[in-house]
Every structure is written in C-alpha cells, then in structure tokens.
C-alpha cells in the first residue's frame, strides 16, 4: 500500500452541518484526507454522501463548520474558484459535452491553463497555437493512460456508457487536480467495466499521487481500494477507520442491514 505522508492533510472538514429547511442532510461531520490517500465515503441512500461533495465543490453552502483545502477556507467560494485551486469532480450522472469529441471534452478540462486572448484566437497566433499544442499533448497522454485512443475523435454522445465514464475521469484528471472527487464511478457498470475503473483509480493514485474521495455503493470495490472509510447514516458520522475496522463495526452493520439481521450478517461477512 502507498505510504501516507505525515504532511498537512489535503482537505479537512470540521463540524460540517447542512440542512434544507427542516431536513438535516449533514450533521456535524468532520474528517480529513491525507496526501495521496484514497478516502471512501459510504452509507445508505440519503445518508448525505453527495451533499458532502456538493459542499466541497461549492455547489452547496453548509450552515456550520469549516472546510480547509490546502489551508484555505473554501466555504463561500464559487465552484469556478474551487475548480481552479485544484478540486476536480466526476459526476454521478454523466455530465459530458455530448456534441464535442473526446479530445475537446478533455481540452475543456484544461480551461484554466489556456490563457490566450480573443485577438489571439481570431488570428490563431503563435501564442494560441503553442498553448493549444502543449495542452493537447497533456490531453493525449491522458487519453493514452485511460486507453480510449480509439474513441478520440468521436462525439462523446455516441459512446457507450463505460467509455463515457472513463472520458469523464479523463476530463477531471485534465484539470491537474490535487483532490479528485469520485461520485459513484462504477454505478451501473458490469463486472469487467468495474474492474477496469478500479484499475484506473489505483493507477491514478500510484502514478499521479492525487488524493481521492470516493463515494460508492459497490462495497467490494470500496473495501478493496480504500485506505480509510467514513460511514454516514442520516447525515451523521457513525464510523471511520480502515476497511477491516469498519466492516467489524456493529453500528455499521446495523445501519446497512437493520437490527434483526445484524447477527446473521456477522457470519456471512
């Protein structure tokens, strides 16, 4: 396993609470993710997993608590700003630009690194060309890394589901993030596609050293991949630890299987 560095955490959430009217979506949740760590968040439906992602990426604003990304408080910042300082996100439902090719979708991930002016664009000046080609090389590297060369020039709307998910991972990686939020990266995938995606996630960590927060319902994947697991239920943190610790936790078993079945479950797991 990858060594966890003793540096300051990439992101730390402290006492986050989020409510919509009378509904408490997230209640006093704290955790932090270390550099290069693969951190998983699990919990039954409606436990507040995606809400936490939305708080981190600036889509929701929690009423209480603080979120520090590389030491900077990011509550109240715009999604655009948070993206620029290094938080990339893969969506639960695919949010790609359907009419653009795979290359162009990934190039949009490079938005913040392309800085030439409107005049440069109209003339396609040397500066524009140089920036385009430099970023294109990075994008092609990612296409190679994700093994989607064959689809490079196709409009994304035409591609099969599994490939689209890979393109979305590529687009997030193109942003050169320091933290990658993966919202159910293998939802709806068959066994082979899931295995491929798991391999890519491990490769991303091993080769690029990007910290990741993973929300996923596929328990097999989470337990195999994650360094630490946070378990949420009804917006509250009920467990945090290594996969082995979490699996043995009676509160977790109760949350997933209910009171009566928890005894029976101990034998099967």
């Amino acid at each position: 396993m990858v060594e966890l560095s003793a540096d300051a955490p990439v992101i730390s959430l402290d006492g986050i609470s989020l409510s919509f009217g009378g509904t408490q979506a997230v209640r006093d949740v704290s955790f932090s993710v270390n550099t290069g760590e693969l951190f998983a968040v699990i919990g039954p439906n409606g436990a507040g997993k995606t809400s936490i992602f939305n708080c981190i990426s600036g889509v929701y604003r929690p009423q209480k608590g603080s979120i520090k990304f590389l030491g900077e408080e990011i509550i109240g910042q715009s999604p655009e700003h948070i993206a620029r300082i290094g938080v990339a996100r893969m969506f639960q439902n695919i949010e790609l630009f359907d009419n653009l090719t795979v290359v162009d979708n990934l190039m949009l991930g490079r938005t913040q690194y392309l800085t030439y002016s409107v005049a440069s664009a109209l003339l396609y000046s040397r500066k524009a060309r140089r920036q385009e080609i430099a970023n294109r090389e990075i994008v092609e590297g990612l296409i190679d890394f994700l093994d989607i060369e064959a689809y490079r020039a196709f409009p994304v709307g035409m591609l099969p589901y599994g490939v689209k998910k890979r393109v979305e991972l590529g687009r997030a990686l193109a942003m050169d993030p320091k933290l990658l939020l993966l919202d159910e990266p293998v939802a709806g995938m068959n066994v082979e596609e899931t295995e491929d995606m798991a391999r890519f996630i491990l490769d991303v960590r091993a080769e690029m050293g990007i910290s990741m927060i993973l929300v996923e319902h596929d328990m097999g994947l989470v337990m195999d991949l994650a360094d630490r697991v946070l378990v949420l239920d009804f917006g509250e943190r009920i467990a945090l630890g290594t996969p082995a610790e979490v699996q043995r936790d009676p509160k977790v078993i109760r949350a997933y299987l209910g009171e009566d079945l928890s005894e029976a479950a101990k034998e099967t797991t």
Partner: protein
Amino acid sequence: MSNATASSHRTTRGRPQLFTSYAQETAIFNTRVKRNWVLVGILVMIVLPFFMQRDMVALITTVFIFAIGGIGLNLLTGYAGQVSLGQAFFLGVGAYTAAVLGGESRSGVIGLGWDMAIWLPLAGLVPALIALVLAPLAMRVRGLYLAILTLGLVFIGEHIFKEAKPITGGAGVGRAPADPVFLGFDLFANQTILGYRIDRFTIFYLACFVIFVVMAFAAKNFARSRFGRSFAAVRDRDIAAEVMGVSLLRTKTLAFVISSFYAGIAGALLSIVIGRISPETWNIFLSIDFLAVIFIGGLATISGSIMGAIFVVLLPKLVNALTPLIPGFGGVGEGGILNVFELQSIIFGLLIILFLILEPRGLYGLWLRLRNYFKAWPFSY
C-alpha cells in the same frame, strides 16, 4: 514542414493522409485536398464577376454579406446555443453607424463623410458595444426566453430607427448609405486599373469578397480556439462547464458581442448594396432570413453558414426564374394560384421544416454524407 511531411509520407506508404503532428491535425486545412479546393474556389470567385451580368454580380455580393452575418449568428446560436432573433437590429445599427460616419450630410440627415478605413471597423464595434451593454440583461435568460427578448429588441430598434430622423431619415424616407471610399479609393465607382476599365459592381464585389474571406477565416480560427470550445460547453451542459472553470456569463457575453460585430459589418455592407436604407429594412423578416441561413446551412459550422447564405440569397431568384415556366403560377398581380413571393415564402418554410426533421446538420451535413459516400465508393461502408 514540407520536408518533414514529405518524408513521413514516404515512410507511411499506403496511408498518405496520416497526421504527423497536432498542429497539422488542428489546422483549418488539415488535408492538402481541402486546401487546394479552397484555393481554387477563391480564384474562381475572384475571376467570376468579370464573366457575369451586373445584377448577378450584385446578387453574389449579397451572398458574401449574408455569409458574414450568418457566420456571426452561427457563433451565437450554433456554437453557444443562444437562439437570437435580434440579428436584424444589429445589422441596422451597423448600417446606420456606417451611414452617419461615412455618408454625406444631405437633406436633414447627419453624415460625417469619413473614410471607410474608419467607419467599417466602427460599424462592427458600435453594435458590439451595444451588445455588451445589453448582455447582462439578455444573458440572464436562455432558450425561448432569449428568443423573445431579442425579438423585442428588433421591434424597439425598428421604432427607434423610424423616429431618429437626423440619423435614419425617418419612416418611408430613409437615407443614403455610407460611401465606400477606402483610403481615398472609391470601391463603388467605375475604376480604371492598369488600363482595364472595371465597373463599380465588380469593384465592390471584390471588396466584399476580401472582407468576407478575412472574417470567415477569423471565425474559423475562433471556433477551433479555447473560446469555440467553451461556447460549445455552455451550449451542451452549462453546469459542468462552470465546474471546469468556464465562466457562463463571460462566455455568453462574448458570443453575443462577437456575433453583433459580424452583424454590424454585414449591415453596413448590405446598406451599400441596397442603395438606399429605410428603417423598415431592419425588421423581423431579415432576422428570420439569417436564422434560415444557419438552419439550412448547418448549425455550428462556418462552411455551413456560407452554404446557407448561398441558398437563402439565390433561392428567390431561382423561384423567380422558374415560376413563369409552371402553369398556374404567376408574378404579382398576374393572377394564378400563387404569386412568386407567396411561393418563395412557402418554399422557405418547407425547407426549414424539412432540414430540421431530415438533416439537422443542414447543407453541411448533406455535403459530409456525400463526401463520405464517395470516399468509400464503391463500398457502402
């Protein structure tokens, strides 16, 4: 470059069209065939007016002008996905900016008589500036709401044009357009160059052609740049675009501004072809003509805008020429089932519907199909 490609062609025997660099792949003419055909096309268009009748020359000049306006609208509607009915308003603003700066002061209207080198850029910049001022309002809404909002703009504009008599001459009167005198050289007068006498329609045709080619290439560059991509991102999925770091407001505003710049230039040139501009010219039907250009030509393609312009400008003439040959159809006042203008409107409407249903990529899509068919010929796949 030529050496490098030549040697790589030799090593990749049998696959001579492989791209060997990203610069080559993203170039406007990414194949030699494309470049050569466009060069041939440009040469033909330069020579053409010398072999055509006067009214035909003026008509093709109109095609260039419609192509400029169509490219502008396509950047806004095709690329950025913002449907606008306001193109006629910005054409009008361009035309009157040009007329005031470059026209003559006569019978109560203002005209400064400046050179075309000054009024032509300003005929684009003034509408662009107005678009910039209107953008915060217009870009808050999208889809049909934006269409209605820009429709309102056309009606407000028409009213202002009718009332602003010192600038426009007023309703039913109109005024003379700008004089296209570029650095002292009159582009709309018969000239003798190197002993050859060239008539004024040909001179103006060539001037419009040069402006059109420059603006078409600029638009093509723009479309393949980071801005073209962010336009498409905003069109396809605006939330995701924002998370990628694309600013929605800035991107939409830029689309609106650049589209109005193109419209303004087109308006200024169109007013010269028309000869006398009245406020009624810049009405909703002109906007619809431009929508027809991009829908028939093909959304989000520059070449499509040009094909659409050819089609929209030449179709009425074709219908005009053909109707007398069909029994039952006549000119205005000649009786018959339908007159020429009614038939034109019907054909236009039918074509837009047919294209939307059968080939949403427009004439450009038809061209792609044809090209791909012959690429693989005689095998169908």
